[in-house]
């Protein structure tokens, strides 16, 4: 006649029946989530390990400082130059856009501009390759500059977004103090706001450079026909560069070329990993400093 099992004060306090099932499901889900995280880290570790172990064999001083076939110096120099030119274009524009967003734009202008930046950020890099090809290469010649324009478009939204975040963190009290002294807007922007945010702006830029330095798709159309023996610093001709050379070697299927490509991959990956880890740590620190 009783509706359920009788109350037993001596029963062990462990779940049974439905609750046990629910807890098992929950534990399984926790396990799956942990496994997913472990798997992602394992893939990263595997890739980095492969690149490091196979690339280390290729790298010595000659590899870095001489041209093909003993080294990849021209490619390193070219990538450095292209990145510099790209950053020289993207950084001022990016910072000015960030200033526009924080200092001048009302919500009506800020919305569309932010959307524009998001769309620029989402453009596939091969599209940018086609773009610079049509704009700067077609009927003329390939050039490191054309590649740099594409990389600048990749860097631009990253720099603008990063700088904007830091600029927003500049304490109101600094601006107000500057206003109270009767300082003009431009002067307080240039001498108070920007210097305060400078650290964050530079680290955002480094992150953007790290992102753009390994971009291959635009360079395949903009700067892919080059002589790997020749050091070149003229951005108005096709410049040797690391990503395209890795791509070419990987397509060729020659074991010696593979070793060389692993070596370049190791150099590129270590630059990118150190730059982005370092910049991230610095960025977190300067943000903490600004907001405290």
């Amino acid at each position, binding site marked *: 006649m009783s509706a359920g099992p009788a109350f037993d004060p001596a029963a062990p306090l462990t779940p049974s029946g439905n609750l046990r099932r629910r807890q098992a499901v929950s534990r399984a889900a926790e396990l799956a989530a942990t496994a997913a995280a472990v798997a992602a880290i394992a893939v990263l570790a595997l890739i980095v390990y492969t690149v490091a172990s196979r690339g280390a064999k290729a790298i010595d001083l000659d590899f870095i400082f001489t041209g093909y076939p003993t080294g990849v110096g021209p490619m390193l120099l070219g990538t450095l130059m292209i990145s510099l030119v790209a950053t020289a274009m993207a950084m001022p524009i990016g910072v000015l856009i960030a200033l526009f967003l924080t200092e001048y734009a009302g919500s009506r202008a800020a919305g569309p501009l932010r959307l524009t930046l998001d769309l620029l950020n989402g453009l596939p890099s091969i599209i940018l390759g086609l773009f610079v090809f049509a704009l700067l290469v077609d009927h003329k010649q390939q050039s490191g500059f054309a590649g740099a324009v594409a990389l600048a478009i990749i860097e631009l939204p990253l720099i603008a977004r990063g700088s904007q975040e830091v600029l927003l963190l500049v304490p109101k009290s600094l601006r107000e103090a500057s206003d109270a002294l009767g300082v*003009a807007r431009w002067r307080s922007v240039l001498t108070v706001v920007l210097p305060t945010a400078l650290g964050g702006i530079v680290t955002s830029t480094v992150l953007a450079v790290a992102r753009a330095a390994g971009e291959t798709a635009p360079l395949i159309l903009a700067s892919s026909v080059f002589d790997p023996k020749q050091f070149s610093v003229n951005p108005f001709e096709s410049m040797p560069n690391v990503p395209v050379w890795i791509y070419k070697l990987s397509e060729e299927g020659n074991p010696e070329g593979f070793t060389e490509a692993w070596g370049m991959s190791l150099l590129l990956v270590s630059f990118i990993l150190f730059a982005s880890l370092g910049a991230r740590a610095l960025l977190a620190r300067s943000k903490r400093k600004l907001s405290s």
Partner: protein
Amino acid sequence: MATTVSPAARVGRGARVSLRRRRFDRIADGALFGICLLAALIAAATIVLVGYQIVDGAAPAISKFGFAFVYETTWQPNFGTFGAGSVLFGTAVTSGFALLLGAPIAIAIALFLTLLAPGKVRGVIGPLVELLAAIPSVILGFWGLLVLAPFVQSKLEPFLHGAFGFIPIFGAQQTTGLSVFTASLILTIMVIPIIASISRDLFSAVPPELQDGAAALGATRWEVVRGIVLPTTASGVVAACLLGLGRALGEAIAVSQVIGAGSEIQASLFEPGDTLASRIALQFPGALTELHKASLFYLGVMLLVIGLTSNLVAQWVGRRFAYAGTVAK
């Protein structure tokens, strides 16, 4: 007399200086505003110019093939016949598969980072997962070519064919491992960090009162996730997946290294294929005729349209989510 003149003169000069300075300030203020506005306009102009140049480059192919280009499947550069059907298929399969596989893993990682991992572990694993996105695609593709593809060919293909061979997508083992399947795996690796980092930010913004309330009512951790965390962030997570999809659709280099450059539509994932982006990367440098180039530009137009659409839809879904969030509060 002299004593009354000199302070007045000083005041006059000061006033004149401050007047001149004020005029200079006004000009400089205007100039700073002007160049900031100019920079913003450059960004807007860039996107318009990109669209214009791509469509302009595609014009010969558009006028020759019209809309039929989008679904025609023959691509024979030597005969001047071009159609995007097969690469469109390849793009859909690789990106869809990458999302199908990557999204659950990425969401699980985000849940692990927000709900399970202790602070220190979170501080290490979070950035590491994002570093996965920092690896250049050419290196990921190179790794895929030399490490992943042989593994897929010798281990995964026979296993999947043996276990699920009755489904036609798991066809017979191929000789190289360069296939739609390998490309999808590489794309999976690429979309995971994007979806994971956005979802993590969403999950950590879920009000703790709601989660604690559910837990106090006796919900297990999984039930809190299913009942509170996922429903409140659903549209944001969808937006994150769409952004990941945009990344997968547009990836050219890594895909072109591992997909094997096939030009037919095949049911088996283990056959070679091609995507919109990878075909452009593979064929553009060697394209000789204007029509071939224009057709590749046409692929670019399609890619641009699909990419911008997925991006805009993601923004729209994301904004809807933000709106719902403020109402809930």
